[in-house]
């Protein structure tokens, strides 16, 4: 099952400058694992050696932060959109 993944600027050198790619998988971690098939090195930028999403990476499933869902284990379905967003400064 394929979902749309939005790629932030700092990673687009790994996606041929594409802002949007697609990937297969039934959960966030499967999607992330599979991203590297077509885009070499992408997975390692997003997760650490234990497969956990890195501290300064935010992953959204359809506008919802996956930390509000089931984290890396969150299930995805066809038509979903995943956004990867670096932490953004603001406030104090």
């Amino acid at each position: 099952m394929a979902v749309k993944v939005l790629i932030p600027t700092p990673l687009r050198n790994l996606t041929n400058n594409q802002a949007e790619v697609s990937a297969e998988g039934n959960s966030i971690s499967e999607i992330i694992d599979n991203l590297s098939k077509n885009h070499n090195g992408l997975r390692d930028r997003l997760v650490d050696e234990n497969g956990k999403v890195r501290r300064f990476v935010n992953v959204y499933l359809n506008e919802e932060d996956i930390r509000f869902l089931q984290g890396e284990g969150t299930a995805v379905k066809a038509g979903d959109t995943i956004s990867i967003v670096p932490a953004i400064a603001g406030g104090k």
Partner: protein
Amino acid sequence: MSYVKALKCRECGQEYEKVAKYVCEFCFGPLEAAYDYDKIKKDISREKIAARPLNIWRYRELLPVEGTNYNTLEEGYTPLIKADRLGKELGLKNLYVKNDCANPTHSFKDRVVAVASTRALELGFDTLSCASTGNLANAVAAYGARGGMKRYVFIPSNLEKGKVIASLIYDPKLIGVNGNYDDVNRLCSEIAGKYKWAFVNINMRPYYAEGSKTLGFETAEQLGWKAPDQVVVPMASGSLLTKIWKGTQEFIKVGLIADKKMRMFGAQATGCSPITTAYKAKTDTFRPVKPNTIAKSLAIGNPADGYYALKTINESNGGAEMASDEEIVEGIKLLARTEGIFAETAGGVTVACLKKLAESGALDPDAVTVAYITGTGLKTQEAVADHLNQVQVIQPNLEAFEATQLTAVS
């Protein structure tokens, strides 16, 4: 000429050129300006600083810009007020309030935007931009105007008219985005990826964030070249607290002040307290929250610098507190009533947490304590409007006055 060697990833140490880049391409860690402190130590002195104009640029060696062509409105060097009346109510014998309402657009954001816009002009940008709901929007619109730059300010479209006017007056392109603050920020990330614009809180963040250090510098200078013992700082992303700490450590490192164990205390609103919650739970992972607080300038549910803020709090033997909406309003009123300073809601959070920290014994009552008031209450009047005493209306004659006020008159 600059003392910044490179931008450096705070997580993995990877170095980058001093351009408009904010995130490490390898680990997504935040990039930070890396200085040549040995060289600064040789070149800087108290006398040199004291002889310079009274704005943030007096600390130029420790700010991440190359030249001296500052885009300035004389931000910084705001009053550090001895707050004896407030201190007495809280049982703190050496309390000071750092009042950043005095800045050009009346919040500490002028410090960070002055630095970011100066660096943006150095890098050849002609457009200044940001995502914001308030103070930052005002500062970017104003400093963009002052620097002769085009200015694009992005806000949630449902923002109150009152907050919009204080940005619109500087004639920016003001874009209301149908969505919440996160949506606005995400759109800005995309625009920053495509257009050669300086987004102060995105691609200019390594420069922007350094501006906050000046609050630490000034406090030490104003206390007679001495760091305070303990400080209370409002936290949204947590950046301000870490930068006040960093600035103070830098002053020690380059020999301007003596080494000292300064304790850092963070203040959050109960309705958006991921950092304080993590502190109290003794964990270093954050659960993002959906903000629900009147302290909108602190309503960032996913604190980008929360990890570092927490680390700083713990390593400095500090602490963290949180304040409810009711306590925030009382905090604003308490500061106004005792010291004559009208703070924004974030200032109410600071004062309310200061009170709790004093009452719980977390703060040393004899130590030199500084509370940071980051912006003026004129911008957040709606938060207190329904919680104040009323005007007493009388007829315009002495008899009417005496009839209603007699008990109050001594």
